[in-house]
């Protein structure tokens, strides 16, 4: 292990290290803590310039209730879910199929196809913006959840295919070969041999791209415009314009917007990090 474990050092060093990590963490998250604190303040406090002291009144519940009752925040949250869940399922399914084909079949153009998926995944969004917007309008899907979902499935398929292909390539060929000799059909092989083996990768991938899609802002600006379909990222930035000075409400809204991916992250931390760092240890 590197650096040397602190347990092997002197007692004072140990104590200071154990204190230092918490101090560092406090400083690291200070901007966020400030927002969290603000979301519990009253208008009176903010008007009086009490931004950093103890709130004279704790308005935590009131502020959050206000956000949910006085603004379309609940609608935005729901929209984000309506967009994100199908997009995750779609992208993961398509890329598992594609990843399997790229990993375990030999055919011409295999490397080229794989390279296209990788490259496409890194392009700047702006080079896709105008054509994708027009395509969405032409299909009659502008300002609908389906328009966003389709785009997210298509775009995330690039990253997901890279991910699944690299995972599946590591699975033993013998299993698949043996099944082929037995006369099992290719679809059955995929369904009953490959799919159970890739389950851990599926979980990691799903958690990861849930966060990517949930946090998308650019496409939410480009492909939708009404409150009825707007996801929470675009919603909160629209609310920011309307609330101007009501910082306690903006703060509460931000906290709400951040919460779902955070909860998911803490619930599935191991999967999340496995997904994110795939390739960081090899390749």
């Amino acid at each position, binding site marked *: *292990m*590197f650096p040397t*474990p*602190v*347990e092997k050092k002197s007692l004072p060093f140990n104590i200071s*290290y*154990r204190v230092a*990590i918490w101090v560092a963490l406090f400083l690291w*998250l*200070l*901007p966020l803590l*400030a*927002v969290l604190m603000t979301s519990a303040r009253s208008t009176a406090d903010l008007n009086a310039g009490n931004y*950093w002291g103890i709130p004279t009144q704790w308005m935590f519940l009131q502020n959050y209730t206000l956000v949910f009752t006085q603004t379309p925040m609940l609608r935005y949250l729901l929209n984000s879910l309506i967009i994100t869940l199908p997009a995750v399922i779609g992208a993961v399914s*398509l890329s598992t199929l*594609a990843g399997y*084909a790229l990993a375990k*079949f030999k*055919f011409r153009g295999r*490397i080229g196809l794989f390279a296209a*998926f*990788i490259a*496409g995944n*890194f*392009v*700047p*969004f*702006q*080079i*896709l*913006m*105008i*054509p*994708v917007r027009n*395509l969405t309008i032409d299909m009659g899907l502008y300002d609908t959840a389906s328009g966003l979902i*389709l785009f997210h499935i*298509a*775009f995330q398929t690039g990253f997901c295919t890279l991910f699944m292909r690299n995972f599946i390539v590591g699975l033993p060929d013998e299993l698949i070969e043996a099944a*082929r000799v037995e006369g099992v*059909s*290719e*679809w059955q092989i*995929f369904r009953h041999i490959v799919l159970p083996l890739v389950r851990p990768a599926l979980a990691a991938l799903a958690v990861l791209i849930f966060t990517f899609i*949930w*946090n998308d*802002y*650019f496409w939410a*600006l*480009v492909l939708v415009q009404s409150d009825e379909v707007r996801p929470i990222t*675009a919603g909160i*930035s629209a609310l920011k314009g309307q609330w101007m000075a009501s910082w306690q409400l*903006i703060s509460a809204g*931000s906290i709400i*917007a*951040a919460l779902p*991916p955070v909860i998911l992250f803490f619930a599935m931390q191991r999967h999340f*990090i496995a997904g994110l*760092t795939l390739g*960081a*240890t090899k390749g």
Partner: protein
Amino acid sequence: MQKLHSKQQQWMPILFLAPAVILFSLYVIFPIAQSIWLSFFEWDGLGEKTFVGLSNYFELFSDEQFWTALINNLYWLIFFMLAPPIGLLLALFLNQKVMGIRFVKAMFFFPFVISQVVVGLVFSWFYDPSFGLFNKAIELFGFQPIAVLSDEHWVTFGIIVAGLWPQIAYCMILYLTGLNNLSPDQIEAARLDGAHGWKMLRHVILPQLKPATFIAIVVTVIGALRSFDLVATMTSGGPFGSSSVLAYFMYEQSIFNYRAGYGAAIATILFLIMDIYIAYFLWRMLKSEKA
């Protein structure tokens, strides 16, 4: 039977690939070509397109806003490169097994999980000239308060710092995973040889962390060139376009100024810059594939 099987093996991969390839081509591959094609036209996004050859590009090169955005992108690239080394330092700092460390690591990673829109709001709040934490802090050291986000000299750096926050967290996680997978034998052997501290890091640890460094640099470069969300939420490119980047400039021109052809030209330039990195990444990736 055998024949049926080899036949199946020929067309099954096509079936497996078809949905992904069709959708990916429709939404990613073709649009790239369409955008490049569009950059040779004058178009308001709705009416007739007029072919204008390279004139969008000529106009771009004499457009001051373009150069501001391009230079800002360069600043993003340069200063974002702080993320991998700081991430490494944090990872080294946190790579211990004391009580509560799992929680601490998870909380350090926090900024990466939340949306950039929220990061933007958090930092707008942090920089606020009258009550923001940033100005409170510099006042302690006797400096005059700075309105970071409305000062054209500071604004881009202010936004970059906001962007570094989640990016450092990302790099830290990459390195923590890398540190977890170090070969204990090599470290022990180096320790017996008397290596420690900086020497150990430089000659034994860093070479083993190479894959993590590679990924960290790739995602950081891509992140720097893709910067849009923070600019859009924190300043909308202002004051007077001084914090714009190519990604935001393109969006502004096409959506607000109805200049789709011009926007496409900006996107093409950004795409060409990004291509250098994409090509490098692909080359590395495919090389390790053959090895």
